[in-house]
């Protein structure tokens, strides 16, 4: 009951945020939401499936490019381009899953990395389609129910709604019997197989589901920036998502959201004050690993419980 009340208070606070904060902070929060969906989708694989992916930027980038190309080159409206981009990217995840899931552990990591590097290279070199290093620009934000999202707070509410829906659906996924089976394949794959579960199928379905949410974050990303550049498909982007999950706490629902907030605030806010913010990012991660190796969310929970039991 307190948990539900806590969530309600948090949502109310988030809904009130644009009234209290300046435009810059509202935009920063929108970027945190987008990145939180991205990190949460990586968390499905890493935290619940035990599958470390270094290629998750593929889904973000491909969905963003697909939406941009469908609106700019094929002349489709956003409402038509968005589902096509999502379906296309999810189908790609189906295919990539067939390849990447031939291995687990380090092999899986390298396969996802290789696949995403292929896409990154394509976006850079296929200049006729993607305009290469110039990137695609001139993309419009959609206007659901006639409300333009160009305004910072309008976009904020749109991103907030999508993020809440995404996190809720991912939480349902994890809490379901299928989610339990997924955790089983992470901890005891051979026992799960002996119990009659199709381990490969469980992993593949999770891979596709994570790819779908990666694509959703990609759509929000391209609507927010109105611009897409090959760098969004790069290894650096995948690694940043992975870092957010590990820093926040993999295998927890709130972890990726907290991690995404840490990364985005360091990258986009603190960097305005500290020139060597990359170094600061490094220090923060070292500190997290030293003091809370399981991530910020489980770490804080542990500290909280300890102080309570002492009192």
């Amino acid at each position, binding site marked *: 009951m307190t948990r539900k009340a806590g969530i309600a208070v948090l949502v109310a606070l988030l809904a009130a945020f644009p009234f*209290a904060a300046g435009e810059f902070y509202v935009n920063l929060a929108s970027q945190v939401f987008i990145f939180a969906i991205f990190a949460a989708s990586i968390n499905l694989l890493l935290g619940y499936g035990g599958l470390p992916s270094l290629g998750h930027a593929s889904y973000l980038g491909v969905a963003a490019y697909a939406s941009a190309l469908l609106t700019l080159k094929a002349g489709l409206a956003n409402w038509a381009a968005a589902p096509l981009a999502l379906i296309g990217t999810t189908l790609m995840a189906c295919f990539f899953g067939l390849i990447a899931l031939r291995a687990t552990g380090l092999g899986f990591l390298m396969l996802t990395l290789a696949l995403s590097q292929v896409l990154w290279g394509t976006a850079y070199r296929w*200049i006729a389609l993607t305009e290469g*290093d*110039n*990137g695609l*620009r001139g993309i419009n934000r959609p206007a659901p129910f006639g409300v333009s999202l160009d305004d910072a707070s309008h976009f904020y509410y749109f991103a907030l709604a999508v993020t809440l829906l995404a996190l809720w659906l991912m939480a349902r996924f994890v809490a379901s019997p299928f989610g339990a089976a997924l955790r089983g394949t992470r901890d005891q794959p051979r026992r799960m197989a002996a119990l009659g579960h199709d381990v490969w199928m469980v992993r593949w379905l999770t891979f596709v589901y994570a790819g779908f949410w990666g694509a959703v974050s990609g759509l929000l990303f391209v609507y927010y920036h109105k611009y897409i550049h090959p*760098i969004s498909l790069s290894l650096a982007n995948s690694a940043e998502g992975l870092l957010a999950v590990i820093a926040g706490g993999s295998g927890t629902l709130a972890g990726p959201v907290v991690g995404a907030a840490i990364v985005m605030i360091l990258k*986009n806010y603190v960097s*305005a004050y500290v020139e060597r913010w*990359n170094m600061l990012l490094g220090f923060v991660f070292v500190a997290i690993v030293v003091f809370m190796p399981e991530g910020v969310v489980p770490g804080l929970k542990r500290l909280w419980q300890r102080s309570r039991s002492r009192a």
Partner: protein
Amino acid sequence: MRFTRRRFVQAVGLSLTGLPFHSSAQASPIRLGLMTVKTGPLASGGIDMERALNQYLKERNGTMAGRKIELSVGDSAGVPAQARTRLQDLVEREKIQIMIGPLATGEALAVDDYIRQQQLLTLSVAAAEDMTQRNPNPWFTRGTSTSSQCAHPLADYCYKTLGMRRMVVIADDIPYGHEMCAGFQRVFEELGGKIVQKTFPPLTVPDYGSYLAQLNTKADGIFLGFAGSNGFRYLRQFNEYGLRGKVTPVGGMTALDEAVLRNMGDEALGIVTSCWYSAELDNPINRKFAAEFRKEWKYDPGFYAAATYTEAAVLEATLNAIGGRIEDKQAFMKAVRSIKVDTCRGPVRFDSYGNVVGNVYIRKVERKDGRLVNSVIHTYPDVSQFWTYKPEEFLKNPVYSRDFPPAKNLEQ
């Protein structure tokens, strides 16, 4: 209530002085933003941009047209998506009224629609052609040059004065390199020359060995369209492979920039390049600028330092023309496109697309007072982005790229 950092500072300032806070439009400072790159591979140029701009402001006691200038600096690390966030930071939090920058082509394109949406006055350094050509941004003015603006006259010079007929072009595999080579090729081939080989190594290639092995040595010359330190790296290997004296290198506007020249030796001597600036330019503004810059930082100002120093001069001249009222954006844009101003690069004015019309200098590397300099050997006066073509006809063609204009004279 919106509580920003500035409001906090104002509140503290108020409570300390106890004086009422005046904010008449005329006396309040002008908020200037510099979008530059201070981390990553483009940082050396980006830091020069900040140094030269600070020098200009210092020389004017931080005042233009009777109003104080407050400078905020944003570092994009050369990453387009981050350039957008940085610019939002400058506009929405620092409340800048005018931006100088950004540095790189990709960044300019990434913030294009944001500039339009915010109607942000922009004085750009980035060379992206179409920002002032087929899709001109009404708030965008460029006092440096497009990618090909200095390559057109160099092609003319190579054909007519250096007597070259068969040439190779090589450049970084980025739009800036493609656009520059395309402009060079168009003018050179229309004069009757032949481009016999075109090569685009990746921007971060570790070693030019394989490209040098493939080089067509039966050509008269090779055009180097490199940026950053790549021109320096290529030339060093070019000499190590014993190609010096076989094919004559000539360079684009960033290939032998002052910023890399200071690390080079005799291998650079005698190489001809073209640029809209040289630290050796003999005009009163530049004599003072280059001497001061050299005194402060112990090296010559180059492309990037001159870029912000020029843009600052354009800004000041425009503010003087409109009595400092930067709040009237339409008046500013009208004024900036009609002024003529003397800068460190010589006299400049702007065409109706917002791009500069100014001198382009053919320069030759010489040794002077023990250091290498780009001595000016020829001047093409008042060069526009359209060279000698009619703008309407120029704009009917697709934008310069890897494949346009098509290369018909390639040899194996």
